[in-house]
């Protein structure tokens, strides 16, 4: 017999084959009343057959999803339960044993493979260093070269796309339906999501331009030093992208005058330059400076003075 470790041999080849009689307790069924057990299992399996058949009918008749799930589920459960009980109560119980042979080979075999690896490699590679070096450097360079274009073609380089929005000096504020926001559109306490006119249907632009406009009062609101003219007639606008993880800051607590991000509960005080009062957001929401034009429509004085949304390595705060 060869040294074949793939095939375990529970008994030595020379040992007499194991023959047991049916009255060996290892082969006994686990129940005292096999007839009764067989009847019970038959009932369970019959229920399984009915369940699966009912599922077929339910599928053909296109009954409600719950009836499909219940009939198939119960059918499979009874089939499985019956089969498991069959295995547990009416099949040889053992316990049986199997020898566990050491996986390790003999010392000589280990040395033989180590020798083959070391010595053949030595013969092949050490004598042909130039060839091995050329092949190795070729494969190495190919690895690098293959990696870079592959990754590079998956998407553009970030460039300035993360820092720029479509808000410009004079951008007209419109809602999601393209309606311009007039100074009378919102009553105090009102809130609407706005976009620069012309970009409200561009999904890509909406993702970065989205701005929440709140009418915080009826008089000009100064949220911070140097922002004296930014919130005319109580209209204040902040980027809707949370500075934490980029969720839309979609909840407005009117009484507390807080913008709340539903994702991780960052809260921004709208009277205070949207400084985070609570939660993980590290920075205030950028504020969009507004003015009201001669017709009474809201426009942006300029774009955002900083990148909107969450932080990233290239973000330059200064």
């Amino acid at each position, binding site marked *: 017999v060869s040294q074949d470790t793939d095939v375990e041999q529970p008994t030595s080849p020379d040992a007499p084959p194991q*023959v047991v009689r049916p009255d060996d307790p290892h082969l006994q069924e686990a129940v005292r009343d096999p007839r009764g057990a067989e009847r019970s299992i038959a009932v369970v399996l019959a229920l399984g057959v009915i369940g699966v058949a009912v599922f077929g009918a339910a599928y053909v008749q296109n009954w409600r999803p719950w009836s499909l799930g219940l009939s198939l589920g119960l059918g499979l459960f009874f089939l499985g339960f019956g089969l498991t009980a069959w295995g547990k109560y009416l099949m040889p119980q053992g316990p049986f044993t199997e020898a566990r042979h050491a996986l390790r080979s003999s010392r000589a075999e280990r040395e033989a493979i180590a020798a083959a690896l070391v010595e053949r490699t030595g013969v092949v590679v050490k004598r042909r260093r130039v060839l091995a070096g050329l092949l190795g450097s070729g494969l190495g360079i190919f690895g690098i070269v293959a990696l870079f274009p592959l*990754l590079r073609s998956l998407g553009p380089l970030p460039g300035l796309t993360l820092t720029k929005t479509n808000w410009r000096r004079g951008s007209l504020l419109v809602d999601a339906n393209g309606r311009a926001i007039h100074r009378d559109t919102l009553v105090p306490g009102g809130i609407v999501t706005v976009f620069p006119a012309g970009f409200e249907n561009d999904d890509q632009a909406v993702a970065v331009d989205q701005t929440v406009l709140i009418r915080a009062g009826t008089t000009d609101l100064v949220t911070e030093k140097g922002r004296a003219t930014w919130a005319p007639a109580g209209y204040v606008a902040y980027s809707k992208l949370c500075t934490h993880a980029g*969720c839309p800051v979609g909840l407005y607590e009117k009484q507390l005058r807080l913008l709340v991000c539903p994702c991780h509960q960052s809260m921004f005080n709208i009277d205070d330059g949207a400084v985070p009062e609570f939660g993980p957001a590290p920075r205030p929401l950028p504020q969009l400076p507004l003015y009201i034009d001669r017709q009474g429509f809201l426009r942006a004085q300029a774009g955002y003075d900083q990148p909107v949304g969450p932080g990233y*390595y290239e973000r330059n705060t200064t």
Partner: protein
Amino acid sequence: MSTAPVRTKRQIKAARGPYGRVGQIVNELDDRFGLARGGRVFLDKIFPDHWSFMLGEIALYSFVVLVATGIFLTLYYVPSQTVSIYHGAYAPLRGQKVTAAYASTVDLSLSVRAGLLMRQMHHWAADIFVGAIVIHMARIFFTGAFRKPRELNWTIGITLLMLSLANGFIGYSLPDDLISGTGLRIMYSIVLSIPFVGTYLAFWLFGGNYPGTVIIPRLFIIHVLILPAIIAALIGAHLALLVRQKHTQFPGKGRSEDNVVGSPMYPTFMAKTTGYLFMITAVITVLGGIAQINPIWQFGQYQADKISYAVQPDWYMGWLDGALRIMPSWEFAGWGHTIPFVVFLPAVVFPGMIFTLCYAWPAIERKFTGDNEIHHLLDRPRDRPKRTAAGAAMIALMFTLLGASATDVLANFFQVSLNEVLWTFRILVFVVPIVVGVFTWRICLEMQGGGESIGRRKRAVVMIRTETGEYRTVETEPQPDDEKEELPPIPVPVRIEVGAEGGGGDGHQSGVRVVPR
């Protein structure tokens, strides 16, 4: 064995041997592939009979359900972000802007026969799959089954867990509904937060700035081809190593480092495990039929400027969401650069540390115990108090973080301030693992030495009332079953004696055929 050309029927029958057609098939297969000996050994493969060995089977069989239901879903799902106006089966959605991914998911749920059942089964199976992996991993950990020689299989298992988490999250993102889209947005921000390379990785993955138009098709092919293929290959390797190295087993009568005791593959284990496959499928089917999960038609199409309240991922991502929530708002800004530690630490570094710890644990334990021996007999968790305490502390940490992912819901439900809930979790996340670890360690020490009663039936007690009105429990008389002894294990018999009447004319005495091995 060479044979002359067979001509007559009698010769054909004789060539088949005493086992008729089955014997012939075996002969033909064995001629070509040499299957007989190995196949016989495989039928005799012994599976230890312990309930905790079935946990991995739950994972395996829910993967089977995932593949089956997933194939069904691919027949109807359209992986595209092309926007159109909805005209499908779901009336409230008609006239709205939808992507093909979202519309096809709604339609396969509501107008394809058994579509909703299949989709909900798929979702439930995913939740159960990850849960079963985690519980199976806990069993392996607490019983020391990862020790030499099984470190590689532990490593494969951790990798399978990570890939399952990833594929679960990706699958959850595919319907392009409002809740999953928000999760994807957070994932984008997490990738962005990685210093130096984050923006490049995010742009390569999403094909540009968020949301782009390629992420759903890319996630689709990752979800249905790339990751399932890797997972299936690793499951194959996991099981192949298990067969090669054989099962571990708990110590007990007749069990040693040199054998495996239990039920043979055929027929006992095969019957039980097939029945188990049916029952697991059944549970998932019933859940898919009656327990609604992820009703995306109620959430609506994902739009980058829309959001819903109580946004939560599937349970297995909850620990990451909880970590994100309770992290203080630290961000480094300077020299023209920003590092958002508030996202990078809890969502990238922390899970990296957790999984590195998992990968490294066998090596760590080997270093601390100096134990480089081969182990096939399992530990009882109480006998390894430090390991058990460490595992319990880790589980406590994970579930505290899972709780932290519900801060808003808890605050709402108990009518307490969100701030207090948040600070409670910030403290609990350190306190709970330490307390759980110390308690577990103490309990293990207390329980040690209580092993004499293993395998014996507990003596029943009866409560009696004395004449004075006092209640007392009294042990019952010993029963014969109390000392029930297992039989000593024997090798699976080569041949069962069938009695003289089964002998027939094949020349072997009393029906016993000698099968040399």
